């Protein structure tokens, strides 16, 4: 905490895609439902690509909230994302219909989509891991936001999918808050460079579905790795 403030990255990018939950009445199943959808949260102010954030001030956020339980909370958040990622991906495929449900391996190959590099392992420095995690989940938060927006447009009645997308997005947002807290509290880092990749906005529906599919598939893979790597670093001494 006594370290000087470091700037990891700072790229000013215009505000990109934002999504806001909407009240909808939809009907479908299993990807649909009949529930007034209250997507509450919270206005995401994240650039889709090439955007760094963290804090606007030169100091860490409220220390009163950065308590000792944040590590555990972060671990639980990663574990939660890891536990739900596969279901989210499967549900996504199911709700996109053919050919995604049958040709997912080909269509959802993540090689053709940007995804932040996550080149840390269990032996990596904890600070490095935290930064990599921040970049990953900042990207995921933005990407999930875009996917949610696209699915609200493409599958507005896929309630369960939308709920899971909302919850995953919320979780990544909370995870970002916790990582920010940890970076600031432990390493006095309050700025991190984040790459967001290409936005799906304006693309065709199939492309939107495919990009979402590719991101989610990569997400499933990376979150599992992150959960494994993060565990020893977040275990209380």
């Amino acid at each position: 905490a006594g370290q000087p403030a470091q700037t990891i990255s700072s790229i000013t990018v215009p505000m990109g895609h934002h999504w806001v939950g909407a009240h909808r009445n939809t009907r479908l199943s299993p990807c649909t439902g009949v529930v007034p959808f209250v997507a509450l949260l919270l206005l995401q102010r994240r650039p889709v690509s090439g955007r760094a954030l963290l804090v606007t001030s030169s100091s860490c956020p409220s220390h009163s909230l950065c308590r000792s339980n944040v590590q555990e909370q972060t671990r639980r958040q990663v574990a939660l994302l890891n536990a739900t990622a596969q279901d989210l991906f499967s549900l996504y495929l199911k709700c996109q219909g053919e050919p995604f449900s049958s040709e997912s391996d080909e269509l959802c190959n993540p090689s053709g989509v940007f995804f932040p590099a996550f080149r840390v392992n269990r032996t990596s420095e904890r600070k490095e891991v935290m930064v990599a995690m921040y970049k990953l989940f900042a990207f995921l938060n933005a990407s999930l936001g875009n996917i949610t927006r696209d699915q609200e447009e493409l599958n507005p009645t896929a309630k369960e999918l939308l709920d899971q997308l909302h919850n995953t997005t919320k979780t990544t947002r909370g995870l970002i808050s916790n990582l920010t807290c940890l970076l600031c509290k432990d390493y006095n880092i309050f700025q991190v460079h984040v790459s967001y990749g290409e936005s799906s906005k304006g693309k065709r529906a199939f492309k939107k579905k495919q990009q979402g599919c590719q991101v989610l598939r990569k997400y499933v893979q990376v979150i599992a790795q992150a959960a494994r790597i993060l565990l020893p670093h977040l275990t209380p001494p």
Partner: protein
Amino acid sequence: MFSGWNWVAYGLCLLLNFCSLEVSGGLVQSCGHIIPESPVLALGSNFTALCILNESCLDFGNIYANQIIWKIKNKVVPKEQYREINRTVSSVTFNDTSSLATPLTCNILADGQIEQNIYGIAVTIGLPPEKPKNLSCIVHQVSKLIYPMTCTWNPGRHTFLDTHFRLKYRWPQDEFPDCIPKDVNNSCTITDVQFFVNLEVWVEAANALGKAESDRLVLDPIEIVKPLPPHNLSVNSGILPTVLKLSWENLISGAVMKLKFNIRYRTTGDTNWIQVPPEDTASPRTSFSVQGLRPYTEYVFSIRCMKEDGVGYWSDWSEEKTGVTTEDKPSKGPPIWRIIDASDSPASWTVRLMWKTLEPFEANGIILRYEVTVRAKSSLSSPAEKYNVNTTNLTLKLPNGTYEVTVIARNRVGASPPSVLLIPASNSKAPVKNVRTLPKDGKLWVGWTAPNSYVLKYVIEWCLVSNSSDCIIEWQNEPGNVQGTYLRGDIKPFKCYLITVYPLYADGQGSGQSVKAYLQQDRPSKGPTVQTKKVGKAEAVLTWNHLTVDEQNGFIRSYTILYKTVDGNETAVTVDPSKTEYTLSSLTSDTLYTVRMMAYTDEGGRSGPDFTFTTQKFGKGEIEAIVVPVCLAFLLIVLLGVLFCFNKRDLIKKHIWPIVPDPSKSNIAQWSPQVPAKHNFSSKDQMYPEGSFTDVSVVEIEADDKKSFSEQDLKPFDLLKKEKSTSEGHSSGIGGSSCMSSPRQSVSDSDEGESTQNTSSTVQYSTVVLNGYRDQTPVQVFSRSESTQPLLDSEERSEDHTGGGDGTTPRQQYFKQSGGQDETNTDRPCFERTRQITPTNEGDLVGFAQLQISGHSSQLFGLGLEKNIQEAALPDVLQTSIEGQTVRPETVAGNPPSADEMPKSYLPQTVRQGGYMPQ
């Protein structure tokens, strides 16, 4: 004078100025205003208001600040609170705003003491918000992914102002929109929260007087979750009959929250839950096997969950699910007992074997049948009798002896252990002692002292004692190591139960010891009906019947007899409940008593109907003591009287009951000796020879002036007259006009029209010479007279003279002839009746005429003739009479006078046409 006009002009000018000001520009303009405008003040604070006058008003109206009057509503504020700041500004100060009210007005007292309002403000008084306290939050899971968080707080005192509360929350670097309560001021719900992020929550209260914030709460919402209970709970039977397996689904992901569980269960129909030990379900799971259950029993299960570490809240209990364990063989044999009826035959018994159905936890399934085995103990060689029974009783006729009875219950899985009962020849073993009962907790407890010998078990037998129903025996078994138990049955309050305890030994049974008991006592439903058996002068014997068992409602502890007089105090006597009779003593004689009787149980008494009785006026023997002497005295007096009368009977007879001569027994002893030859008595002599006509009775009748011939007196003669009438007046006249009288004219006895004037010139008179009738002295002696003088005068006078010493009352003599004939003849005597004519109204009738009616001798002496003969003689007599006088016979054959008319023949005759006149 000039000055006065100036003031008037000035006033008009001021008024015009006001008017011009108000209308200028078309808007109403005020001469001043108050600051602050519409203040909101804290209650209890001080407050100063300023009233500022416009300069224009000063110019036109000479209005200055010293003329300002402050008012609260219509009440003038004391001038001590005013302060004139300058000539246009006046202030008022209130040390305590609690005295303020709306509106606060600034007024001015213009010339002419006219009060004008300048301005007014509304004052709002309230309190600043207090700091909200006791902020707490809870996250209610409403679905698998939605977790709204509700926070509540204490808003503090009422501020009297519009106070807004806001629930504020934020993450370390994110602010969220405030949660604004709807319709309440003490809670708000955040629709969704994110777990695993510390959330800072606080409440802000704000009104016109300020803001206040609660303490800040930092929490991870995962720590305050009240999850939904597990759902889709299912219960499955396991392999073992004592295990059921529960399965469920959790509505919260294990990645979000690890759960622990509570599982509770109960048997169907039971209200008490049994909980699975919490440590057994403290880890996340979706199934659990509940062990230690009873076979073939339906259980109800429910489950709840909470965060594994115990932070947060338990969920509600899940919906209840039921499951049934599988069957097992019965765990014990059915309790068995018997009723032995030895009344039919001395050599055999009728044994009614009874056993109870097993409790479900003992039956462990559906009992298909009972297997009963009866083995005679005396003859071990004889085979046992076996019976398969579907009911719970079996009646056997067994020879006297000792038997071993076993009963086995069997279900689909297997058979129960056998229940054994010995049926001994007699209850020869030691009984229990000191059987007692005690109502407790709505049940009836029976206790006893065990005998010294080892007892296998006890049988408690009981039945309801009632007049209206038979004693239906119920029973239950108790193990041999207890000395008391509650009766397991429908024991009703206020009913008498006869309870018997039998000890059962390995080789027989002891005799039963009984006791009567009530679960609950009450007052008797009615009181005894008392009545008297015997009532005396000072005591009364009361009797009553015991109340029936159904009426008692408890043990009758005593009777109380309450008795009183009409106006006396009630006296109570307590009587032993075994008695049915009581003697009340020391009662007042001849007094009405009201008596009633109360029967008491431990719970109170009830009175029977009132009964009244009156004590006797006299005691026993008193009446006898009075009556007997009186009777004796009366008898003595009667006896003395009888003796006296007997001694004086002659005297009494003389005065009271004189001897009346019987004419039928009279006789004319002797006729006058001088004239016997002149009488034509030849025939008579022939008919009545000397000595045969001896009995002549003489009847003396004293004729009073008015009463001599009263009807009553004449009654005896009525008969005579009647007879005479029937004999057509063939009677012999008195005074010689006897049957033997000479043929002189006689008149008939006819009532009317008889003329006493005898036209015959010669009347023979006769004098009866009496020899006396028997011992009586003859009153007069008549002898036949040859006189030809008129009869009445001489005879009257003769009567007067010969009548003896009764000069005023003429005496008439009648002869009743008794010719010694039979009674038939005497009923129709041939006699002559004297007709006495008594003057009634006529003063010249100074005497009475004595008529002598003489019949023809041949007729008169024909006493033995038939009646028709006598009747036939009457016309002759009448004919004879008519020759001399006009006599109208009133009495004719076939038309006899009535009985009422008969006495007229003896009464003075009324003169009628051609009638007889008294001479």
